[in-house]
C-alpha cells in the first residue's frame, strides 16, 4: 500500500463520518476557521439522510438541506474531504493524535464529469446497496444523482479490470485509472469528532415477522428508497414480489425495539417515520388501506400535530397492539398479521398486501469502536466523551435529523474548545 503525503495539523480536527452529524460538525468548525479533515467510508457524503425520501415533519426533501451543506464545503478551503476512506488507527492524546487513514481506490479521478459513458459500456452488474439490493448498477456507477462528490466510482470487487477496460476507452476525460490502489494517509490532528452513525436493526433476527423470508415484508429504510423519486421504482410504492401497486399496507412499530430479546431501548424516530410514510402511501393512492400497529405512539412535543394530521387522514387506522406474528399466504403473497387490539380487547388476524417493519437504530460503535477512552453504554452508544474526542449524532443516542444537526454543532464546539483551551494554557 502506497503512502500519500502526511498531514501535520495540530490545531486541526478530524471528523469521522460524513453523515448529517459529521457534515455539520465539519462545516461548523471550518466556518469558525479551523482546519477540518472529514473522513467518510462510502463514496458519497450525506449518509443515511441522503437515502431518505422526505424529512418529518415538514416533508421536504433531504437534498434541499444537503445541497446547502455541500456548497458550504465547496466554498470553504478549510475542509478536506476523503471519501472511500477508513480510519485504521488512532494513537496519541488530546492535542496530539496520530491517525492512519486507508484511502480505498475509486478508480476514477477528479477529471470525472459524471457524464455516465463508463457505466454505459460497463459489462458487469452489481446489486445496488444504496437501494438495499432492490435494483442493480453497473460496476461503474454513480451512487445517486445528487452525489457529492459528483464522481463515478468503480466497484473493485466486481470490476473485470485491465482485461476489460471498456470504460477507459469510453471516457473522453481520461478520468478512469484502473491501476489505482489503496493508499495510506497519516495525519496529526488536535481533536476528533466521532460521527459514524447507525445501521438499522437486523430485521432477519425477528423470526416471527418474516423479513427475509417473505418478499413483501420490508423495513422502514427500504420504504424510503421505494418512495424516493431516484429510488429503484422511481418513487412508485409497489410490492417487491410482483411490482403491484399496494392497496393495503401495515406498519409494524417497535419491530425489535423496546424488546429485551432485541433492542431494549426506543429509537424515538420510528413512530414519526411510519406516520410520515403513511403520507407517502396516501399521496400516491388515497384509497389504500393503511394500518399502524403500535405499543405507544411516540410523537413528542410539537410532533403531536403531525400525529393528529395523519390520524385525520381517511383510511389510516392506528391499532394499539404489537404484531406478534406474520405469515404469508403463499397463493397471493399477502401477509397475515396476528395481534391483539388491546384497546378493544379483540384478537386480530388481518391480511395486508405489504408490511413495513419499523426497525430501530443500532449505533455503528457496536461493531467499530475507535481507540481511546470513550465510555460506551450497554447498547454500544457513546455514553461520555473523552478529552479530545467528541461524539455526535446517532453514535450518542438515536436521534432524528434536526437533532443530529444540533449534536454535530455541539461536537464542533467541543472540538474547538479542546484546541483553544490548550492554546491558552500552553
Amino acid at each position: 500500500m502506497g503512502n500519500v503525503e502526511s498531514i501535520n495539523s495540530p490545531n486541526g480536527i478530524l471528523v469521522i463520518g460524513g453523515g448529517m452529524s459529521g457534515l455539520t460538525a465539519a462545516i461548523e468548525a471550518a466556518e469558525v476557521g479551523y482546519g477540518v479533515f472529514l473522513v467518510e467510508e462510502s463514496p458519497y457524503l450525506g449518509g443515511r439522510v441522503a437515502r431518505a425520501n422526505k424529512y418529518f415533519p415538514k416533508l421536504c426533501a433531504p437534498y434541499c438541506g444537503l445541497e446547502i451543506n455541500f456548497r458550504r464545503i465547496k466554498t470553504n478551503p478549510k475542509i478536506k474531504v476523503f471519501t472511500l476512506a477508513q480510519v485504521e488507527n488512532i494513537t496519541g492524546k488530546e492535542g496530539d493524535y496520530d491517525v492512519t487513514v486507508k484511502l480505498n481506490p475509486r478508480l476514477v479521478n477528479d477529471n470525472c464529469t459524471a457524464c455516465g459513458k463508463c457505466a454505459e459500456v460497463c459489462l458487469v452488474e452489481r446489486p445496488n446497496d444504496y437501494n438495499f439490493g432492490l435494483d442493480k448498477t453497473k460496476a461503474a456507477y454513480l451512487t445517486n444523482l445528487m452525489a457529492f462528490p459528483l464522481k463515478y466510482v468503480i466497484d473493485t470487487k466486481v470490476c473485470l479490470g485491465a482485461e476489460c477496460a471498456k470504460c477507459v476507452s469510453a471516457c473522453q476525460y481520461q478520468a478512469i485509472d484502473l491501476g489505482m490502489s489503496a493508499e495510506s494517509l497519516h495525519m496529526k490532528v488536535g481533536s476528533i469528532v466521532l460521527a459514524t452513525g447507525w445501521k438499522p436493526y437486523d430485521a432477519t433476527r425477528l423470526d416471527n415477522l418474516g423479513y427475509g423470508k417473505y418478499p413483501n415484508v420490508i423495513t422502514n429504510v427500504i420504504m424510503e428508497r421505494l418512495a424516493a423519486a431516484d429510488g429503484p421504482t422511481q418513487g412508485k410504492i409497489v410490492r417487491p414480489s410482483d411490482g403491484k401497486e399496494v392497496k393495503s399496507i401495515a406498519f409494524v412499530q417497535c419491530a425489535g425495539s423496546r424488546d429485551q430479546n432485541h433492542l431494549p431501548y426506543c429509537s424515538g424516530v420510528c413512530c414519526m417515520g411510519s406516520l410520515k410514510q403513511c403520507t407517502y402511501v396516501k399521496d400516491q393512492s388515497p384509497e389504500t388501506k393503511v394500518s399502524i400497529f403500535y405499543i405507544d405512539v411516540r410523537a413528542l412535543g410539537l410532533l403531536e400535530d403531525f400525529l393528529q394530521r395523519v390520524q385525520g387522514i381517511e383510511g389510516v387506522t392506528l391499532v394499539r397492539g404489537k404484531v406478534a406474528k406474520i405469515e404469508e399466504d403463499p397463493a397471493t403473497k399477502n401477509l397475515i398479521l396476528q395481534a391483539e387490539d388491546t384497546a378493544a380487547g379483540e384478537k386480530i388476524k388481518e391480511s395486508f398486501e405489504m408490511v413495513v417493519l419499523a426497525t430501530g437504530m443500532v449505533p455503528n460503535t457496536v461493531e467499530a469502536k475507535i481507540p481511546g477512552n470513550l465510555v460506551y453504554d450497554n447498547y454500544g452508544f457513546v455514553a461520555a466523551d473523552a478529552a479530545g474526542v467528541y461524539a455526535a449524532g446517532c453514535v450518542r443516542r438515536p436521534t432524528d435529523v434536526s437533532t443530529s444537526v444540533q449534536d454535530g454543532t455541539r461536537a464542533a464546539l467541543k472540538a474547538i474548545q479542546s484546541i483553544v483551551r490548550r492554546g491558552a494554557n500552553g
Partner: protein
Amino acid sequence: MSPAVPDKETVDIIREMGGGTLKICYQCGTCTGTCPWNLVRTFLPRRMMHRAQLGLIDFGDKDIWTCATCGACAVRCPRGVEMIDVIRAMRKVIAEMGVAKVPDSLRVSVKNISYVGNPQGEPEKERGSWAQDLGVKPFAPGTELLYYTCCIPAFDAKVRRIARATVGILNKVGIDYGVLGAKERCCGESVRKSGNETIFQELAKGNIQAFAESGVKRVVVNSPHCYHTFKKEYPELGAEFEVIHLSQLLDQLIREGKLKFSKEIKKKVIYHDPCYLGRHNEIYDEPRRVLQAIPGVQLMEFQSSRKSSVCCGGGGGRVWMETPKEERFCDLRLKEAIDAGADVLAVACPYCMLMFDDSLLSIGKESTIEIKDISELVLEAL
C-alpha cells in the same frame, strides 16, 4: 357502570405467590397474538395480566385454567414477563387458599398423585409392572443409570409403548441401568404448574430422598416435563443427580458409535417439538439428529417448529382437563402433518403422545398417519 377499583391486596398475593414479574408488563398484546388458543377460540392473556396488575382477577374465571404453559408467549414477551409464573401464582391462590373451585378432573388427578403417586390412581406397587416381561433390573447401588418412568408410560396402556421401546434400546446397547419401580412417584411438574405447590414439594422431596437412598447419580427420562423439573426445579430442593433426556442419550450413543442401525425405515417422519423439551429447555437438535440417523427416514418440518412450535395442549395440567372437541389445537397440528404427507408424526414426550393419540382417534385418521415416540422408531431400526 361504576369504575373498577384496583385491589392492592390481591396484587400483593399474586406477587407473593410467584407472579413478581407481573408489574413490568406494558400491555402490548404479543402474548395474545402468539398464544395457540387463538387458533381455535379467543383467549387474551394480555387482559388477564392487566386484571392481575389491578388485582381485579375473578378467581372463578375458568380461563385461569386454560393456559397450557407452553411458553410461546414468554419467549416472545418483549418485557420478560414470566407469564407462566403469574398464571401459576393465580392457580396457587385457588388451589392452596381455596378462593375458588379447581376443575373437577384436575382435582381428581392431583388427589390421586398425592395419595398414590400417579394421576391415574393406580396402585403404587404396580408402577413397575410394565417391565415385567422385559428383564429389567431394579436399580441397585452402583448401577450407572436410572431410567425414571414418567407416570403416563408407566400406567397408560397405550403410552406404555414408550417405556417398553426405551428399555428395548437400553438392553440392546447394553447399558448398565435399572428402574426404581414402586419407589418413585410422579415428578410433580404439572402438579406445580396447576398451583399445587405443597403437593409438589412433597413429591419432589420424596423422589430426591428415594434417589439419594438408592445411590442414583444419573437419570434418563422420556418426558420433557420430568426433565424440566429435575433439571431446573429439583436442584433448589437439594437434588444432586444429573438428568438427561432420552433424545440426548440416543444422540450421544449414535455419535459414539455405540448405537448402530441395521434396518431401514423408509418413511416420511415429521417431528413435533415438545414445548418442555424445545422452548423450555432449548433441546431442538438432538431429537432431529437421532431421527436423521435412522436409515431411510426422511425428516420433515412443521411450518411452525423449534422455538415457534405449536403446543399439543397437554402442559400445565391441561392433560388432565377436558378440552371441547372444537378447541383442540392438537387436531390442527395433526392435520398439518397429514396434509404435509408425513407417514409418522414423531414425538419425544408422553403427554404429546397422549394428546396426539386422542386427536388421531377423534379425527378418524388412524390409517393415514402413525404417532410414534422417537424411542419406538429407533428400536424398530436396530
